[in-house]
């Protein structure tokens, strides 16, 4: 049985029908992970624990116990989410020896749904990067062309799903870190509305932008995982419940009525010709099926990159202040308190993290605060208002259609020397985070890994807490 191609839905059916056991699935996929070690997707596999969890699911089936919606489904975690008793490093040397003493809320919810936590995946250090090259551990390769990056920062999760090593993984998305690597690795990447999923137990990068979401093979699977992890959590005051309607079995007649907007600012000259052609072909599929499609404008889009690269580093510089050598890892050879702080951070953080901490410290410092941080907070409102106007219930559209990235996956080292060129990778994904909206990246077409073609993704963006719209439209695209 080749489990590499099966979706969560197919795996669930097979386990329920006893065509195969949860243990068989987990052992076979762990074998695949071992066989693909050179891909560098995983930092650690929870071998014995995953096996024991799978056996527990099989016993529950044999005993006729009620099963959760993800019973027996192996899921990988980006290495910035806490699993009790396991190392969690956020891809950083500074947390090399840190062991979590509790489960993140998403981990708790996945377990309650019956999922099996199979391991932790590689990522850019503290989720800062668009290629997974800033990981302090090793590089992750793109399963479609191993000379290219998998995207980032959830590059390990996306590569694992893209290569068929797991049917699903969790990532975190601050400016595109779920959607961009998913697009690069031929997977579906879904960033829910800000507040839809608890961030308790996620190593914070930029707290007003971070959101956890799934990377999966299909849109239907993304809906399944989202349905299991969503919900208000007393331990995250920004999390909330909402009435999502029917996420798992969309009413296709209602989906066909959704009005699609195409923001002209996302179809610019700089887009790679192959990417532009592919994205246009996806839009054409909606057009031919008779969807209502019209051009819209999000006039402040051009400022999103600057706004993001002020607000995000500002929040980074405060969130990462706690890695000072007192409660987490400490550098050797410093005696005085102040030297412990300086040495631990100087030696423990990589260049990109240091760059962003300094940038954040600058934009928050007296004399520059109003001109940079204060200004960015105001322009952030204008960017969010653009979306609200486009989504106006009376005259607007329901869903926006856009490319996920302007380029195909790039080669290792291609953008490392120039931070700004790396930051431009997030151009089409980060405005969504500034506005807190839900968005999903979907592969334009299914292609085989290492067949000479590179994956391209397109994005559907929805109103706040209207994940049902983009998941429904995404499922329509997959089925037609």
């Amino acid at each position, binding site marked *: 049985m080749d489990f590499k191609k099966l979706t969560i839905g197919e795996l669930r059916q097979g386990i329920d029908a006893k065509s195969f056991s949860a243990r068989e699935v987990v052992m076979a996929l762990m074998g695949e992970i071992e066989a693909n070690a050179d891909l560098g997707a995983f930092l650690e596999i929870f071998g014995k624990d995953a096996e024991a969890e799978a056996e527990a699911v099989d016993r529950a089936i044999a005993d006729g116990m009620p099963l959760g919606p993800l019973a027996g489904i192996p899921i990988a975690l980006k290495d910035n989410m806490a699993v009790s008793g396991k190392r969690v490093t956020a891809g950083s040397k500074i947390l090399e020896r840190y062991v979590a003493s509790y489960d993140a809320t998403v981990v708790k919810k996945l377990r309650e749904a019956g999922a099996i936590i199979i391991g932790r995946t590689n990522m850019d250090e503290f989720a800062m990067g668009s290629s997974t090259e800033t990981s302090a551990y090793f590089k992750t390769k793109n399963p479609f062309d191993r000379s290219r990056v998998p995207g980032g920062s959830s590059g390990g999760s996306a590569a694992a799903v893209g290569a068929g090593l797991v049917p699903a993984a969790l990532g975190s998305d601050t400016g595109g870190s779920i959607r961009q690597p998913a697009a690069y690795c031929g997977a579906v990447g879904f960033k829910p509305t800000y507040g839809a999923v608890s961030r308790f137990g996620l190593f914070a990068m930029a707290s007003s932008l971070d959101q956890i979401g799934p990377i999966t093979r299909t849109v239907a699977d993304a809906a399944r995982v989202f349905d299991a992890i969503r919900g208000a959590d007393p331990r995250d005051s920004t999390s909330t419940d909402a009435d999502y309607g029917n996420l798992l079995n969309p009413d296709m007649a209602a989906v066909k009525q959704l009005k699609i907007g195409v923001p002209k600012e996302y179809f610019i000259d700089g887009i790679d010709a192959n990417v532009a052609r592919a994205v246009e072909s996806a839009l054409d599929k909606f057009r031919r099926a008779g969807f209502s499609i019209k051009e819209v404008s999000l006039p402040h889009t051009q400022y999103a990159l600057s706004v993001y690269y002020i607000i995000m580093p500002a929040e980074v510089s405060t969130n990462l202040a706690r890695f000072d050598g007192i409660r987490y890892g400490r550098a050797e050879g410093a005696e005085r308190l102040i030297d412990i702080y300086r040495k631990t951070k100087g030696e423990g953080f990589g260049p990109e993290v240091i760059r962003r901490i300094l940038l954040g410290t600058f934009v928050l410092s007296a004399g520059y605060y109003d001109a940079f941080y*204060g200004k960015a907070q105001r322009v952030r409102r204008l960017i969010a208002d653009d979306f609200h106007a486009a989504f106006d219930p009376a005259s607007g559209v329901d869903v926006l259609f856009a490319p996920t990235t302007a380029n195909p996956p790039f080669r290792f080292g291609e953008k490392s020397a120039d931070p700004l060129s790396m930051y431009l990778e997030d151009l089409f994904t980060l405005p969504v985070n500034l506005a807190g909206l839900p968005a999903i990246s979907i592969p334009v077409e299914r292609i085989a890994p290492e067949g000479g073609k590179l994956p391209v993704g397109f994005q559907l963006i929805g109103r706040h807490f209207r994940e049902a719209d983009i998941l429904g439209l995404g499922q329509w695209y997959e089925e037609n």
Partner: protein
Amino acid sequence: MISREELRHLADLARINIPEERESQLVHDLAGILKHFDELKSVKTDAVLPVTGGTELVGIVRDDTPSTLPGKTGVELFPESDEGFLKVPAVFSD
């Protein structure tokens, strides 16, 4: 736009050691990024309220009940501890 002295001051505020040989590259990188931010100057924002977080939820509270970490207390993770307490070097010293 940013000098070496300013960079050292920022590193001091952030409590990060920066080796001298990396200073010029960092000055170059930060100057390039800050220059990009100039475009914001042209946006009129006098009448615009700042966005101060990811959500507009207010007054979110939970029950004020003590909770402990399951099993271990967390102290064992500290680089230095003494009888269940976090240990730090003297804060005030010469």
